[in-house]
């Protein structure tokens, strides 16, 4: 347990939080929601540990949000924590989406719903943007900004494949962190 002085996350609480998170998220804003619930509201995990989870979850195969949920559950409470976070984040949406498919088969019209939920998805995306802005705000020194900027330009603007970018910038960034810690 890396953070002994933080509030303990019980297994029940992990299941509850991730069940809510799974149903609350539309269209890709999940890491933002998780940051709010896990770091800001409950202080279960440090900012750095959370961001490391984001980076690991993106680099490893699999959906980012599921990977991040697994990571958080596991760091908090080991295997049972990871299992409950996984069930919480995927279980309810899994049942919901099948229910929606049934409705569709029975003749429901989902076109109008799509427009509204598309808007909601953009609002969810704002959650991610906010996390990015808040974290960027707290970065001190030149090198974190250089690394963050280079990553954004390479992956976001130039659309280079993420893995090679991370393989180059990751070690460089860790090296810079090590160097700046020694010269602090």
């Amino acid at each position, binding site marked *: 347990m*890396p953070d002994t002085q933080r509030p303990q996350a019980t297994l029940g609480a992990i299941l509850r939080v991730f069940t809510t998170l799974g149903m*609350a998220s539309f269209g890709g804003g999940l890491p933002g929601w998780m940051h709010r619930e896990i770091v800001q509201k409950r202080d279960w995990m440090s900012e750095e540990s959370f961001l490391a989870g984001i980076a690991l979850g993106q680099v490893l195969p699999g959906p*980012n949000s599921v990977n991040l949920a697994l990571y958080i559950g596991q760091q908090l409470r080991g295997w049972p924590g990871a299992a409950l976070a996984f069930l919480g984040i995927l279980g309810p949406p899994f049942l919901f989406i099948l229910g929606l498919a049934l409705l569709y088969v029975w003749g429901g019209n989902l076109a109008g719903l799509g427009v509204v939920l598309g808007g909601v998805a953009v*609002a969810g995306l704002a959650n991610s*943007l906010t996390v990015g802005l808040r974290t960027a705000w707290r970065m001190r020194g030149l090198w974190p900004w250089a690394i963050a900027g280079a990553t954004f330009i390479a992956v976001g603007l130039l659309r280079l494949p993420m893995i090679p970018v991370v393989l180059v910038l990751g070690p460089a960034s860790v090296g810079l962190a090590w160097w700046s810690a020694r010269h602090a």
Partner: protein
Amino acid sequence: MPDRLLALFLVFAPLSLVSLGGGPSIFAEMQRQAVEVHHWMTPQEFTELFAISRAAPGPGSLISALVGWQAAGFAGALAAALGLYGPSSLMMLAVGHWWRRRGDSPARKVIERGLAPLAVGLIFAGVLTLLRADGAGWLEVATLLASAAALLRGASPYLVMLVVALLYAGLQQAGAIGSGG
């Protein structure tokens, strides 16, 4: 039927390990397998499933469950989801296990501090990519910025989502935005 469940699992398990960042990277191959290789559905049906998955909460990759459901009912949905989430999750857990055992070591601290700016860059890149994927126009960009501004001022995300939902529903009723699809 067991054959089909196994086939579903075997289609999605390899996709699991090449799905970087989740759904969008594997949609094309998913469609090829479901439509052209296995004939579980027509291209139109796949497009409909895609629209349904966009309208549901949770990760977009849950379209795998819909493909499985279309091919083999509820058991098919489970088999497909198990295939898509199983292998990548085990890999994430293996790395996470190793990570957790490092505890509070200085090495882990340095790695975390090095990964943080990378994560920040990836967050912004992800926002941009998703906006592009949705073919966002000025309305979406305005929604994004206004929502972010509200959130930064401490507004509840649930409230923000409710307001946006009502706004879009109103705009659609007024015929200002299309019925999507």
